[in-house]
């Protein structure tokens, strides 16, 4: 009885991707991929997604720990607020980033007048836009892992005289490592695919700030075949990510 709608769901989710594979100009694939523009966009995308993930780890893991372990008023509100970028349309995220960190933004204005720093249209802007959109994935994943972790080990270590810092480093972190890893990989994939916030906040300059998704979008206007090839490349990367995660990516959110 359920097999029909389930089959439809599979067709709906997999069909478009199969279409991409069928339409792809396989014969010209190497030639189209070997252009300096594609290479530059791919390198920038991989580099920025990785940098964004590192930034998310540095800031997101402590945040997740506070959300999971600390008791303070307004914790639920804070949790809702920091996961907002997850449901926010990315373009809106980009606009908000511009109004906050742009040269005339709330904070950006002072950065510009005091330090001469201008963030929009730079590689840093790409990283920040990606981190803004991807960090909630990591925070939720790590928070879920922390909530699921067995506190007794930490308590035992504490009674044996371990300092809080030692407990965190030797007990807490290793026990939630799978969750952190899964969150990081998801976060990386989300950052890699980020388009709306990036193009709004960082713009799109081939060879400088043009990431793969922006390149796909521009290519669609002039040479759809190129767009298909670029999409295939992104698709391959995403499949590799999912395969590497196997079932684990739901584990952190259980």
């Amino acid at each position, binding site marked *: 009885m359920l097999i029909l709608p389930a089959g439809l769901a599979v067709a709906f989710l997999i069909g478009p991707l199969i279409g991409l594979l069928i339409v792809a100009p396989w014969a010209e694939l190497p030639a189209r991929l070997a252009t300096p523009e594609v290479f530059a966009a791919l390198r920038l995308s991989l580099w920025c997604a990785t940098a964004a993930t590192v930034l998310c780890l540095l800031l997101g893991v402590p945040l997740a720990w506070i959300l999971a372990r600390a008791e303070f008023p307004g914790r639920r509100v804070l949790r809702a607020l920091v996961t907002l970028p997850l449901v926010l349309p990315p373009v809106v995220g980009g606009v908000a980033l*511009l109004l906050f960190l*742009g*040269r*005339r933004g709330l904070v950006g204005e002072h950065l510009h007048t005091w330090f001469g720093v*201008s963030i929009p*249209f730079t590689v840093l802007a790409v990283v920040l836009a990606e981190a803004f959109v991807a960090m909630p994935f990591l925070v939720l994943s790590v928070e879920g892992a922390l909530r699921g972790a067995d506190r007794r080990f930490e308590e035992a270590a504490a009674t044996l005289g371990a300092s809080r810092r030692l407990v965190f480093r030797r007990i807490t972190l290793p026990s939630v490592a799978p969750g952190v890893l899964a969150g990081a990989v998801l976060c990386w994939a989300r950052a890699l695919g980020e388009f709306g916030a990036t193009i709004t906040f960082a*713009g*799109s*300059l081939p060879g400088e700030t043009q990431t793969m998704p922006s390149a796909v979008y521009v290519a669609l*206007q002039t040479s759809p075949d190129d767009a298909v090839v670029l999409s295939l490349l992104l698709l391959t990367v995403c499949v590799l990510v999912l395969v590497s995660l196997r079932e684990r990516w739901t584990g952190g959110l259980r």
Partner: protein
Amino acid sequence: MTRALFGLALGLCVLGSAGCGAVPGSVDGAAADRSSSGSPADGVPARQLTVFAAASLTEGFTELARRFEEANPGVSVRSSFAGSGTLVQQLEHGAPADVLATADVVTMDRAVEAGLTGTEPVVFATNRLQIAVPPDDPANVTRLADLAAPGNTIALCAVEVPCGAAAEEAFDRAGFEPAPDTREQDVKAVLTKVVLGEADAGLVYRTDVHSAGETVRGIDFTEADEVVNDYPIAVVADSPQARLAREFLDFARSETGHEVLADLGFGPP
């Protein structure tokens, strides 16, 4: 100003992200209010015309659509504004539209070659480039050459879209390479970056500077007169409203149409 905008954007999103997903200017609000299914009072069956027009035509065609609706009771015009290349690509993939107006002949020719047009395209307006700077002109931009200064933050259109192609030609004639910090997907995106003060200067059309009012200042440059954009318009092949689409075409090229467009800074064909 920025603070207010920021609060507004955030407030909108907290209230519900439904409002955040809306693309500004994608559908003419006045047209959206009058549902196309309801018949107007005088018993004329409601007809809906879908117009795909270049981003630089946003103000002009919004006004044209309003007047066309006034002149034709029972007709509602839906307009979709985007980069010309994006529009052609959407049509290629079967987007339903009756009229296509692009910001240059090259892009329209792509549509003709792909068999997307049902009539021979005709030029209905012209446009020229202008340098747009924030009102206080923080980088002291006075001529085209200032867009090649690496110290300035410069926004240009992507070379794939008409405004970008026109900009390239202007730079070629002037004989130097620009130093852009971003290449946007359509001319309105370039304008926005200048309005927000995030770019020191951008190359847009005169009409865009006109539409931005006090928020930007336009600077003329010599090469602009040598690079004139022709705006062609055509009925889309297989348009379900072909006759109405033709009427809209004629309306755009009528005296009224020229008046509306001239008021916004467009030149005659």
